[in-house]
């Protein structure tokens, strides 16, 4: 594979990681916590999408919003039952609780959906566009980075330029002061979890046609997306998206020049190296805790 096709394949792959990783950023920016099983949220979105859009043949105008609503409700449930009770007690056990919820969801999906992988057809993943020799991509693969970058930009603008956004950021800085300023801290955190799961739902609907729907499709994606979120700096939407793209490029270049046996070794070794050199991630900033 020559240089240009490798870049295109890498960016398309990386934007999938980045898109899913934005979900980690959203909750972290507001509450300092994350849903560790973001991959399972994606599986949930894909399975819901499969039922609504493929199996029951609902039109996209109804089916897609319904998938996102289900994801949002799921996000609210995660926050209410797997995060809030522990954070209120000042405990870090939300970490294990979110992993546990993920495992429960994976098994529920196995129960509802079955083990057999199924296709998720999309008109955007039928005819590849030949960008260069040997470098065809489905239109959907070009759409994913666009959606990812637009969402990253919207998140950035929302948190920096709008009253609600600034209020949400205030929550993580000092929840008590924020409360005194009249900010509904609980609601802000709940909203961030809903948004996080919706992002996973969007990622699911975009990725499923390129992949297949299966009950364990989110597992590896979730891990790679988390790596992207950490490399990018959890606090920065741009950083997370950028890190996703880097991860995709590293993966493709490692496979391309060294062979697929080394892909995972090189990819995750790079994650460690980046974190050693830049402990706060690509665009993250060191948090200052005032006492």
């Amino acid at each position, binding site marked *: 594979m020559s240089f240009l096709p*490798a870049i295109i394949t890498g960016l398309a792959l990386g934007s999938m990681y980045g898109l899913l990783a934005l979900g980690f950023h959203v909750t972290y920016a507001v509450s300092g916590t994350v849903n560790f099983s973001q991959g399972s949220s994606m599986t949930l979105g894909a399975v819901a999408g499969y039922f609504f859009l493929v199996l029951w043949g609902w039109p996209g105008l109804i089916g897609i919003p319904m998938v996102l609503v289900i994801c949002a409700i799921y996000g609210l449930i995660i926050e209410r039952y797997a995060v809030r009770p522990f954070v209120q007690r000042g405990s870090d056990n939300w970490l294990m609780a979110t992993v546990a919820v993920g495992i429960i969801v994976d098994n529920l999906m196995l129960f509802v959906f079955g083990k057999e992988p199924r296709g998720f057809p999309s008109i955007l993943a039928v005819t590849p566009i030949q960008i260069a020799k040997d470098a065809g991509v489905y239109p959907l693969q070009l759409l994913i980075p666009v959606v990812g970058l637009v969402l990253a930009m919207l998140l950035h603008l929302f948190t920096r330029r709008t009253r609600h956004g600034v209020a949400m950021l205030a929550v993580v800085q000092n929840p008590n002061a924020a409360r005194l300023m009249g900010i509904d801290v609980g609601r802000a955190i709940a909203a961030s979890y809903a948004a996080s799961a919706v992002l996973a739902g969007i990622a699911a609907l975009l990725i499923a046609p390129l992949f297949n729907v299966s009950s364990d499709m989110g597992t590896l994606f979730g891990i790679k997306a988390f790596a992207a979120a950490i490399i990018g700096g959890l606090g920065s939407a741009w950083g997370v998206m950028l890190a996703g793209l880097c991860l995709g490029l590293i993966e493709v270049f490692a496979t391309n020049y060294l062979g697929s046996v080394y892909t995972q070794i090189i990819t995750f070794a790079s994650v460690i190296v980046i974190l050693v050199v830049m402990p706060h991630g690509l665009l993250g900033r060191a948090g200052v805790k005032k006492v």
Partner: protein
Amino acid sequence: MNFSCSSPSLLHRRGFVKSIAGTALAAALLVTSGAFAADPIKIGLVTALSGQSARAGEALTRGATIAIEEINAKGGVLGRPLELVRRDDESNPAKGLLAARELIQREKVAALIGGLDTPVAMAIVPFVNNAKVPFVDPWAAGTNITHNGAADNYVFRVSAMDQDVDKAILQYAVKKYGTKKPGLILVNNPWGESNEHGLKAALKAANIEPAGVEKFQDNDVDVVPQLSRLKAAGADALFLVGNVGPSSQVVKSLDRMGWAPPIVSHWGPAGGRFTELAGPNAKNVIFVQTYSFFGDLSPVGKKVMAALQAKYSDIKGPADITPAVGVANAYDTVLLIAAAIQKAGKVDPTAIRDGFYAVDQVDGLIKTYNKPFTKERHDALTENDYIWTRFEDNHIMPVASK
């Protein structure tokens, strides 16, 4: 008064209970010994009956059931009917081993059929060799299942074996496409590993140098980088080993590259809805099978087809028997077990194992077996018994036989 009265009556009651128990025991003994002559010979089946491989497990059940009914209609084996006892292993090695133990120790099966997945079969192999009960694998292809190194081997197979499939893949590609430099694209798990050894050995024996060996993960979305390396290295055909999901990712990645080399594959694509997952180019993948109900059927084929249609209302034609491999392998497995018990002359596991070596001719579905097993050869099928197939819509159709 009460005391003096109750004491003898208590004693009396004890004696009564004793005599009742004695009679019951005697009656039970009589009943069992009386029933023994007509007692069925139990054949165990450990396979996935739920989850991803449930359809395959059902196919094994159907093949075995048809064979057992046919044998029982002719008076059974050694004058006793055969009975199938099934257990679900959920494709889980630990559960498979547990089920095998239960069938052998509690149900006292004369022989065990099982092993849809190589890891499950591998978990059962040491146990059956220890328990000295014949175990016949009608599906899993891992070479080490029958080549398990045990001094006293009780494991047989009526299915494809990786090592032979690898030889067959190369033979077919050379004969059909004149392949000189194949590229290997293998799933990164023990199954891929097993076939990497087999394919490399087959290539070495044929003095052919592969263009390269590339691995892909079960969950890879994009296999373009791996395939591009093989293309750049001058691969003129692809040898594919992977389950249905990952295999479909290979087909879709080839679509995007606009590259259409011949693809010769192990039987992974047969395990699911390959056309739905891989799209229209699924038909480009030629994969190995042991049997197909399409085309001109042998007399045994016609007989089994008719029996299947009569027994299962969902079977209208050959397209409804999926996976055909499961039905055919299980049918032949039961025939061979019955022949081995007949040769043994008694229902004793070790005698039955030796009976397998003595089996001379059995008219099976896949072929007519002629001395299929020896002490050195525990696989009834060879690379010459495989057929080549591809998906046409949702049906597995033969492209060429032998």
